């Protein structure tokens, strides 16, 4: 199979500024924002589709250095979301407001909000008069929500806000009943959330701190290590594309990798990904012959130019010499005045100086003449072909034989060298056969009679006991270089595009497998299946059955082909014999959270679930109105009034624990 997959390198299209229609402007239409750590989806609750979908990233270009001009320093504009056309160009300037799946960097969040509201065309003075539905992470820390509310109410003057959890919105959107085990595979985390009869059992929910971004990083690093030559061509966005389009989850990972061990299977199934490459001039339609001609031509021209230059210089020098000699004549004639006059023009100080310059010139002229002569000789007889020993025959059949022969010789030398190296390595260590043999030879030598050394071959014995590299290996080394050169020159070249291909064998399975085996990247958390099993254990058998019959898969990373089947297999393994189970994949794993939030915003009860501005000022920023798709609100307790220095010590202890956790 020779079909090569070509990377598309998707480009983003900058968002347009949407029209802010009067129905929107005066209708108090809720605005729905699914603020995910991968993408942000924004749209009006009366729309069928989100108006904007963009990556939740901003690129803040560094301030221009070396700009000390008169003009005031121009800060380059900040690019946000889809404004970033070429994400790789600004990879190191990217910022996100997220730390894992929680918003922590609110300056960036504010910039993203500016981007959202301005691109929706909102033009009201001093406020954004729309209730906002915003998604937040499952069990978001109150601190984060407090800052978000602060931002929305105080910077944008929104009338009301409602927060919900993306995976719960997605679940209600898919209408799968009120009991389910939600498996939400996100960009930074995987959540497993049990919901029974509409009640979210947050205390039994679990979060695996691993998601799409980790999978991308893993594959990125893996391929860069496999192809160190293409480090720069293997970009994050290309890896993302490979993961989106060519990866899947193996039904049985052990079985899958066992298959790949066979070379035949590898050959038949390996995926070849073509990296973009610049067609080098060597393969730009010119044959090797033509190239050689061209090279020769260039060399000749260079020689000509050099020769001409030399001759010009020679003529110049001779001219100057003549002048100086004339001046010398002047002084020999005793014409001091005229001499003084003349040397002023030549920047000469005295008679000695003049003499020195003359001798210098003479030398230069002599050298130049020699060079010209040498060049002329070289032209007469073109350089003898290098490495006469390894000239290939011209006849193609004989050439093939010669080539094979040379290759064999090359291998032989390499093998010999390897063997010698291994023997030397073994000799250094005690209790190896080689070391024992060496000792035997040495003792033999000691016992050898007076006739040792009469034959030349006697001396070879030292080669066999020497621990250093000997003359043999030097000779072989030289021969190796010669053979390598010959092979490099005459070996038929592979088409250069093949050098720019990535061969993906297990990798497209290996990277997503991280979800099930985080240990592959040194993460000691339990994998997806094991954590599900753990969550099940907290429920009565009846509830377990209820959950197992409604395992709901959502989130961007649940779109790996094969994930559903794999989960079914894992459930079959972990559930009691002959019990039933069912896995449901969300209709649109990435967007259902937004759709669900939109339906939520459109419902009649929506107003009851909103935190109004008055409530914000009364209850504080962390306040949350609970509803079926929200987190639970636990009011932050007042911090313990610190008695002397004890809390500081406490905090330190806690910090250490967390370090250990990750």
């Amino acid at each position, binding site marked *: 199979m020779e079909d090569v997959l070509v990377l598309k390198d998707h480009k983003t299209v900058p968002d347009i500024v949407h029209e802010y229609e009067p129905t929107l402007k005066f209708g108090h239409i809720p605005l729905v924002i699914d603020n995910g750590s991968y993408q942000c989806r924004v749209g009006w609750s009366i729309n069928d589709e989100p108006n904007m979908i963009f990556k939740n990233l901003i690129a803040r270009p560094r301030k221009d250095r070396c700009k000390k001009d008169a003009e005031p320093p121009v800060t380059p504009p900040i690019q946000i979301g889809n404004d970033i056309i070429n994400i790789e160009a600004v990879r190191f300037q990217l910022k996100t407001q997220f*730390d*894992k799946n*929680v918003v*922590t960097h*609110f*300056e960036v969040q*504010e*910039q993203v909000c500016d981007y959202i*509201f301005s691109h929706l065309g*909102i033009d*009201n*003075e*001093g406020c*954004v008069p729309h209730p906002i539905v915003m998604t937040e992470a*499952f*069990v978001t*820390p109150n*601190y*984060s929500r407090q*800052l978000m509310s602060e*931002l929305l109410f*105080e*910077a*944008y003057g929104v009338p009301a806000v409602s927060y919900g959890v993306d995976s719960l919105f997605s679940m209600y959107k898919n209408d799968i009943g009120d009991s389910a085990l939600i498996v939400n595979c996100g960009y930074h985390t995987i959540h497993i959330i049990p919901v029974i009869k509409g009640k979210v059992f947050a*205390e039994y*929910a*679990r979060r*695996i*701190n691993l998601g799409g971004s980790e999978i991308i990083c893993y594959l990125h*690093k*893996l391929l*860069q290590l*496999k192809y*160190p030559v293409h480090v720069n061509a293997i970009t994050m966005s290309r890896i993302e594309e490979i993961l989106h389009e060519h990866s899947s989850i193996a039904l049985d990972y*052990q079985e899958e*990798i066992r298959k*790949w*061990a066979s070379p035949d299977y590898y050959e038949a199934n390996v995926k070849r990904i073509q990296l973009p490459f610049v067609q080098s001039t060597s393969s730009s339609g010119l044959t090797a012959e033509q190239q050689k001609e061209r090279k020769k031509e260039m060399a000749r021209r260079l020689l000509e130019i050099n020769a001409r230059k030399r001759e010009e210089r020679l003529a110049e020098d001779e001219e100057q010499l003549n002048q100086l000699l004339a001046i010398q004549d002047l002084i020999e004639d005793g014409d001091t005045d005229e001499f003084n006059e003349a040397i002023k023009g030549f920047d000469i100080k005295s008679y000695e100086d003049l003499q020195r310059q003359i001798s210098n010139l003479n030398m230069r002229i002599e050298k130049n003449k020699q060079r010209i002569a040498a060049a002329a000789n070289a032209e007469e007889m073109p350089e003898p072909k290098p490495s006469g020993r390894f000239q290939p025959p011209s006849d193609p059949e004989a050439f093939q034989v010669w080539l094979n022969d040379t290759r064999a010789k090359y291998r032989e030398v390499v093998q010999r060298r390897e063997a010698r190296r291994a023997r030397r390595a073994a000799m250094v260590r005690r209790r190896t056969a080689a070391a024992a043999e060496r000792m035997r030879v040495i003792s033999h030598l000691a016992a050898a009679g007076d006739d040792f050394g009469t034959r030349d071959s006697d001396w070879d014995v030292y080669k066999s006991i020497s621990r250093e590299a000997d003359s043999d290996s030097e000779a072989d080394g030289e021969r190796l270089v010669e053979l390598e050169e010959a092979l490099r020159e005459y070996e038929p070249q592979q088409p250069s595009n093949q050098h720019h291909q990535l061969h993906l064998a*297990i990798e497209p399975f290996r990277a997503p497998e991280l979800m099930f085996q*985080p*240990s*592959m*990247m*040194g*993460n*000691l*958390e*339990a*994998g997806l299946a*094991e*954590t599900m099993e753990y969550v099940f254990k907290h429920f009565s058998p009846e509830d377990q059955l209820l959950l197992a019959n409604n395992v709901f898969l959502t989130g961007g990373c649940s779109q790996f082909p094969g994930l559903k089947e794999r989960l079914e297999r894992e459930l079959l393994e972990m559930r009691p014999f002959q019990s039933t189970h069912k896995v449901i994949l969300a209709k649109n794993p990435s967007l259902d959270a937004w759709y669900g939030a939109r339906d939520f915003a459109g419902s009649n009860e929506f107003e009851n679930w909103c935190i109004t501005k008055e409530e914000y000022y009364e209850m504080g920023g962390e306040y949350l109105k609970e509803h079926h798709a929200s987190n*639970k609100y*636990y009011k932050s*307790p007042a*911090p*313990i009034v610190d008695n002397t220095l004890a809390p500081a010590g*406490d905090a330190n202890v*806690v*910090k250490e624990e*967390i370090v250990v956790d990750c």
Partner: protein
Amino acid sequence: MITECDKSYCFKVENKFIVKSGCKKRMWRSLKQILTAERALPWQNDAVLYFSINAPPTFKPTKKYSDISGLPAPYVDRHSKLYYSNVEEFATIRSLPMDITAGYLQLRGANMIVG
């Protein structure tokens, strides 16, 4: 803080968190710091917090895969500490430069300085 040049969009009341260039930047707490602070509070017993729903540690023996090919790896190269699955891979591993072997170890999270 609300000067004319500061306010960039008409719909905004004020720039809440965006600081003008040149002003002192506000330091944002990282998630870790937020969680530490959260943990230090005397929560009621039934409160479910961010750190309390971390996945349990795995109890299954971790499987070993060849670092370079991903095949099941029964062997460890004592020199570089890389896993490998067969003779050819061993030869490859031995020819790898240090930075690549270090990269593989880091990828597996096994590049502890200690040990």
